[in-house]
């Protein structure tokens, strides 16, 4: 009996295993293209196949009964179909729907350059910012090698696509930075306050930026601060110009960290060695102290706090333009304290929250004085008011407190809705010759919303809007922003952006007239980008229209003025960018070229004219090569800009401005060089990391002229030039703890 049973079982098993079903079919994507390499399987069995290059597959199975046949392929949603196996051939036509996937989806690149190590569409890495010759680890200087920016050397700021420097605003972790640069010194561009090593990502928008940001007519620079450091470490830097020391401490559980850094810069020794064309009666000195903490929260969010305090002073003396015997002395003392606290948190149901508060205060004590040959103050009678107004003291305080909340909700897949609000309270108080001017107080509120809409991986849209209200001008506005992107090939895409951007007038204008409205710019941008790992090609054309720019209305000569919104202008042009790390081994270079056609009627311009900060042609060539044999990197940057216009506007008898003189500066050329020697590179066991850094600006010694200053009567003009032909730098950067040797280049600079 037992034997019969077993025999029966055995035979039936044999029958089952002999009973085969053939399954064949074709796998296609949503567009009907065959999909190769898709995995076809009968769930819970071993049987299945892989589709061939034509999408075809076929296999036989000895299973029988009801099964689920599944077809899977990377980047596509799984396809499942119930099948009954009963020895009859089965034909399957599987159409796989594309999965929306951030890694594959198109990104909107119109108007925006991404830098950073995590960003997918990154054009530069943070190391690039530090190792671009001529940048000396100044973010702004590195960004000036990208198209769309002007080579303005006499003022700080990013002059983007025919926009003035103040039309670009900087944001750290979403919050506006009120004084991103060290305080202005006449005809001398100042460095940015923030080191590139504070940030893991940078988005430099040359137009058409997101509705989450406002109050910048031309451009937004979005800086994203780093999260927890990799390991604890101690840093130090030494150079004839400065020294610094600091530490980063990461908690044992790697959930929190804190850090503190101090740096002192004194260029006295350097000025003794390298002669300066201007007379520094007070050698520039900077003290900077910064501290931070970062805490990871349970649900993967992070709380970050960063604060920096700095104090700097300098005094320079230059020949007076109105009189050959006299000198203009300018003295500056600056105090700046910046605080930024942000909290990013993941909430339930796909919600994400970004909260931030920030406070900054900035105080400038400025002394401007006409001095005689013995460096003594020179008094003037009221009748020579144009000289009299060159003698003044100014105590200027600017505070900004702000809060911002952004909520984000993922909408099925990778589409997202973002909305929120921000509030800025700004306070501006000036004491001019010990007389208090109006205290400017502004309550600025904004509500914004935007949505990322992905129809497929090939088509994306970002639609947003921003409502803003400023109490000081008592005006509100609504700024729509739209951008679209369409993937035209594997690495290629076309994107476009449109947006309206408002900016309230500068405080120096609001001091005299608060009945002003917003200045306005409308951007239209069309972008083509082709990007692979080693090569980036970008071409962008744009048109920007300016309305309601602030005009200067003279009341009594040029001494008393008021302002209105009667200005206008436009900018149009082409930006080209090419970066290639592939063609020549171990050699990385990029080329930027910008063609700019812009005119504006603003301030004291009598008509629409090309502004004095704009150049028709601007180009940069950046080259980098790291030679591993000698552990040394060499960087060369060459920049060119065609001549910029300069004007002398004077008042006619009808109290109207006219062009008394105009011209064009000669072309601007500059070649910068830097090298870093990193003896510990690649040595993962080394405890001490050293970087030796040298740089030299304007290697070929071109005499740059940025423009001209005119005497009051217009008879003489004085060229605006850099204070020295070349700038040299040498520094040693040390860190103990972790191999940040490459990052350490120019840290604290």
């Amino acid at each position, binding site marked *: 009996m*037992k034997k019969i049973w077993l025999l029966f079982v055995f035979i039936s098993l044999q029958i089952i295993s002999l009973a085969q079903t053939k399954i064949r079919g074709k796998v296609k994507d949503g567009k009907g293209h065959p999909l190769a*390499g898709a995995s076809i*399987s009968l769930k819970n069995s071993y049987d299945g196949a892989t589709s061939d290059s034509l999408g075809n597959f076929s296999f036989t199975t000895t299973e029988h009964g009801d099964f689920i046949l599944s077809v899977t392929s990377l980047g596509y949603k799984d396809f499942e179909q119930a099948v009954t196996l009963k020895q009859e051939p089965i034909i399957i036509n599987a159409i796989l729907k594309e999965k929306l996937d951030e890694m594959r989806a198109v990104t909107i690149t119109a108007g925006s350059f991404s830098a950073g190590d995590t960003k997918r569409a990154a054009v530069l890495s943070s190391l690039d910012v530090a190792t671009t010759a001529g940048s000396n680890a100044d973010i702004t200087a590195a960004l000036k090698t990208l198209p769309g920016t002007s080579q303005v050397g006499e003022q700080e700021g990013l002059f983007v696509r025919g926009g003035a420097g103040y039309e670009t605003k900087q944001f750290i972790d979403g919050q506006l930075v009120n004084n991103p640069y060290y305080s202005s010194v006449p005809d001398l561009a100042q460095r940015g306050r923030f080191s590139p090593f504070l940030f893991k990502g940078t988005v430099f928008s040359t137009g058409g930026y997101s509705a989450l940001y406002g109050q910048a007519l031309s451009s937004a620079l979005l800086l994203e601060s780093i999260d927890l450091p990799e390991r604890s470490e101690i840093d130090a830097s030494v150079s004839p110009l400065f020294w610094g020391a600091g530490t980063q401490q990461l908690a044992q559980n790697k959930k929190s960290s804190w850090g503190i850094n101090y740096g002192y810069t004194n260029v006295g020794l350097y000025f003794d060695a390298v002669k300066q064309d201007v007379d520094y009666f007070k050698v520039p000195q900077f003290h900077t102290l910064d501290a931070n903490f970062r805490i990871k929260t349970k649900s993967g969010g992070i709380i970050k706090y960063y604060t920096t305090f700095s104090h700097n002073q300098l005094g320079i003396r230059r020949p007076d333009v109105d009189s050959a015997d006299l000198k203009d002395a300018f003295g500056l003392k600056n105090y700046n304290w910046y605080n930024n606290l942000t909290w990013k948190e993941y909430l339930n149901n796909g919600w994400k929250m970004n909260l931030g508060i920030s406070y900054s205060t900035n105080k400038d004590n400025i002394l401007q004085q006409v001095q005689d040959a013995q460096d003594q103050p020179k008094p003037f009678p009221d009748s020579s008011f144009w000289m009299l107004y060159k003698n003044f003291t100014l105590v200027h305080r600017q505070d900004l407190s702000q809060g911002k909340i952004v909520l984000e909700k993922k909408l099925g897949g990778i589409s997202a809705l973002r909305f929120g609000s921000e509030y800025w309270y700004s306070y501006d108080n000036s004491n001019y010759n010990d007389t208090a001017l109006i205290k400017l107080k502004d309550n600025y509120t904004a509500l914004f919303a935007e949505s990322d809409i992905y129809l497929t991986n090939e088509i994306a849209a970002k639609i947003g809007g921003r409502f803003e209200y400023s109490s000081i001008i008592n005006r509100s506005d609504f700024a729509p922003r739209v951008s679209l992107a369409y993937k035209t090939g594997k690495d290629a895409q076309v994107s476009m952006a449109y947006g309206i951007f408002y900016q309230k007038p500068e405080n120096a204008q609001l001091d005299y007239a608060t009945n002003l409205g917003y200045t306005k710019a409308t951007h239209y941008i069309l972008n083509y980008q082709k990007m692979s790992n080693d090569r980036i090609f970008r071409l962008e054309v744009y048109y920007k229209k300016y309305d309601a720019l602030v005009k200067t209305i003279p009341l009594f000569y040029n001494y008393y003025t008021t302002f209105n919104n009667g200005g206008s202008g436009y900018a149009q042009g082409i930006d080209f960018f090419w970066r290639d790390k592939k063609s020549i081994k171990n050699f990385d270079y990029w080329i930027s070229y910008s063609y700019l056609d812009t005119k504006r009627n603003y301030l004291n311009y009598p008509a629409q004219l090309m502004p004095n900060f704009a150049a028709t042609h601007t180009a940069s060539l950046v080259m980098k090569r790291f030679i591993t044999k000698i552990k040394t990197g060499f960087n060369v940057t060459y920049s060119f800009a065609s001549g910029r216009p300069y004007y002398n506007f004077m008042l006619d008898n009808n109290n109207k401005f006219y062009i008394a003189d105009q011209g064009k500066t000669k072309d601007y050329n500059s070649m910068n060089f830097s090298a870093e020697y990193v003896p510990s590179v690649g040595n993962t066991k080394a405890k001490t990391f050293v970087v030796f850094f040298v740089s030299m600006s304007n290697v070929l010694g071109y005499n740059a002229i940025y423009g001209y200053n005119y005497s009051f009567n217009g008879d003489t003009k004085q060229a605006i030039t850099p204070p020295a032909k070349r700038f040299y730098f040498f520094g040693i950067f040390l860190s103990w703890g972790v191999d940040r040797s490459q990052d350490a280049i120019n840290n604290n600079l």
Partner: protein
Amino acid sequence: MKKLVLISFVLAAFFANAQSDKYVAAMKKNLTLMDSAKTTADFQNVSNAFERIGDAEKTQWLPYYYAGLALTIPAWTDQKLDKDANSEKIKAFCDKAEAIEKNAEISAIRNMAATQQMLIDPQTRWQTYGMEASKELQKGMQLDPNNPRLYYLQAMSLFNTPEQFGGGKDKAKPIFQKSVDLFKKQDHKPLYPDWGQKQAEDMLAKCQ
């Protein structure tokens, strides 16, 4: 009644045995296919087959291991392959395998997947994927300090790193030697990974 119970036991044992025979046979068949695979498509094909075995078995980590291993092979040579996507797929197999059993062999696969991503752009990716690769190696060595394949991979990475960056033949040689020594001592379990010995010996010869 007793008989019925006995029969069902016998049947269960029979089926279980048949099941495991079927598993062993399928694994062996696909291991042979992997040995003879040449093109990227061949390797993807065999990887898919291992994945099916893993999905059906649910308690075996080896099928997922081989599904991952099969994908690492063409990534060393196929210039056209999207290595980021390939490596992500490999890591997904490693996740599935590790959900069943954590061991040094899986760390070896993870090391290769990260290394392949690093090689796309070593200069900028060294700090992310290079670190990930070395972390996986360390993790694996903690799990099994005597795994010859981990030493082989470590030595390979040293061999391919320029001398100025702390790599080179001389640094790699003692580690290839250690790998080869460990390979000689190793006793082989059926179906378990046994690749690497010949490669390690060849590389050691190159270092002489």
